[in-house]
């Protein structure tokens, strides 16, 4: 078995300021990794560099492509990277409106990725859209409604359906439960966990919510000032943190 994703020395600077510095790790098929840290710690910068939204200053992001094996996605051509972005990769934004087409119906939102990879049968596209709405617990009677008519939690679930419809192997998530109220969060977490297991997805989840990573992530990376200060098994990092910053982070969580 080979890693699905191999990140090597990934560095991004904003002028003199460090976005993220010399980040390296392997992600294996089926693994879910959380990246935590406070605002400004560089976790979103890292995620965006990995997902190809930002050009890093140094480093490699190797992905195990279906046809050519391990390939650096940073030096990859734009068409190739885009193809990856609508087949094997998915990106779930914190704000659903960044990841959805708000003026297109729910069905159209889910169907877009299928059409982008060549689906040309309306009936089949609609069937998959319906199936996916069901899997993210959106009533199929809402298929022709626009996301503007949906609640925040529904929008987020729709975004997930839209991303997973082409059966990606790697999902990047940026604060997927941020901005949702807790009951909605729980439902979404449950859904994500189920999908990750059923589809054998690998995922990288950026969040500042330690409860979210405890439930979703196998592994954890703790970032501070652009550097990874600690990494390991999620419950080990949370229950027996070794680094001063992680100890502070864990002890700062309010108990319910």
């Amino acid at each position, binding site marked *: 078995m080979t890693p699905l994703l191999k990140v090597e020395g990934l560095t991004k600077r904003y002028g003199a300021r460090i976005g993220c510095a010399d980040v390296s790790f392997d992600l294996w098929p089926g693994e879910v990794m959380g990246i935590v840290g406070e605002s400004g710690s560089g976790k979103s910068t890292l995620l965006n560099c990995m997902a190809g939204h930002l050009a890093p200053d140094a480093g490699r992001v190797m992905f195990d492509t279906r046809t050519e094996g391990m390939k650096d996605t940073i030096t990859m051509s734009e068409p190739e990277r885009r193809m990856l972005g609508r087949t094997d990769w998915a990106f779930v934004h914190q704000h659903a409106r960044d990841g959805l*087409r708000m003026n297109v119906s729910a*069905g*159209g939102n889910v*169907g*877009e990725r299928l*059409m982008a*990879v060549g689906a*040309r049968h*309306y009936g089949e596209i*609609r069937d998959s859209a319906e199936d996916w709405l069901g899997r993210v617990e959106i009533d199929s009677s809402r298929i022709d409604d626009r996301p503007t008519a949906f609640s925040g939690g529904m929008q987020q679930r729709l975004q997930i359906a839209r991303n997973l419809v082409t059966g990606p192997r790697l999902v990047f998530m940026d604060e997927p439960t941020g901005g949702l109220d807790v009951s909605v969060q729980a439902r979404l977490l449950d859904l994500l966990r189920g999908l990750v297991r059923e589809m054998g997805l690998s995922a990288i989840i950026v969040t500042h919510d330690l409860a979210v990573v405890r439930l979703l992530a196998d592994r954890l990376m703790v970032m501070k000032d652009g550097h990874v200060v600690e990494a390991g098994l999620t419950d080990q990092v949370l229950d027996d943190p070794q680094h001063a910053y992680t100890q502070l982070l864990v002890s700062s969580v309010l108990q319910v």
Partner: protein
Amino acid sequence: MSDYNFAYLDEQTKRMIRRAILKGLAIPGYQVPFASREMPMPYGWGTGGVQVSAATLTPEDRLKVIDQGADDTTNAVSIRKFFERTAGVETTEDTASASVIQTRHRIPEAPLTEDQVLVYQVPIPEPLRFLEPSEIETRKMHALEDYGLMHVKLYEDIARHGQIATAYAYPVKVEGRYVMDPSPIPKFDNPKMSGMAAIQLFGAGREQRIYALPPYTQVVSLDFQDFPFEASKADAPCDLCGAEDSYLDEVIVDDAGGRMFVCSDTDYCRARRAAGHVGAQGKTEDAA
């Protein structure tokens, strides 16, 4: 004659536009940016088409201008007059004898020949515009053939109306490569674009884009396997000339709901009637 340079534009400008046209012909369906000039008419009145026509016309040409099929509406008349005055070229309403035809929103019914050039006026050249507002992004999408979004639009149509309700400016794919806006012609005209003998040029003045189809280019209207493209028109013959195969305008004739269907292509209808064809209301019309 007048003191205008031939066809209003100066020679350098026409040369610049011709270069854009040639590039457009070399890459069928690709939108070539050009430095659109201010014309003595408002945007939306065909400034793009007029500039392309001006760069195409020679003193020997015979020009026909149609506006939604008709030769005698304001837009057609004023553009025809414009070139009569600035270029001094002959004009005609007869499709077959014209060498350059500038059109707004129609393709003539009579088949065009290799000796003819059809110039379309285009309001919005970007077929992806209403789905993706960013020009940078749409250009990338064209470059990468990332056209899934185009089908999203058609999907939305079917989801909402039970069929592809787009009736005009129906998107097409050119030679299996570029998705192109055919300008707001009715989708009835789409099949005529494919394999046409005449050169087809498209000018968008406000948007500063020119694109083109060389003769005999393959043009395919986008659709779904289970919702194939249909070149629809009103299901009736022309009430004046009886034509069954032409695109029809619906005309309300009184306050009591009376209506008639007539050929949108006035020259086609005139020619048929001259040849003795008569529609259901043809006689009364002639009598009146």
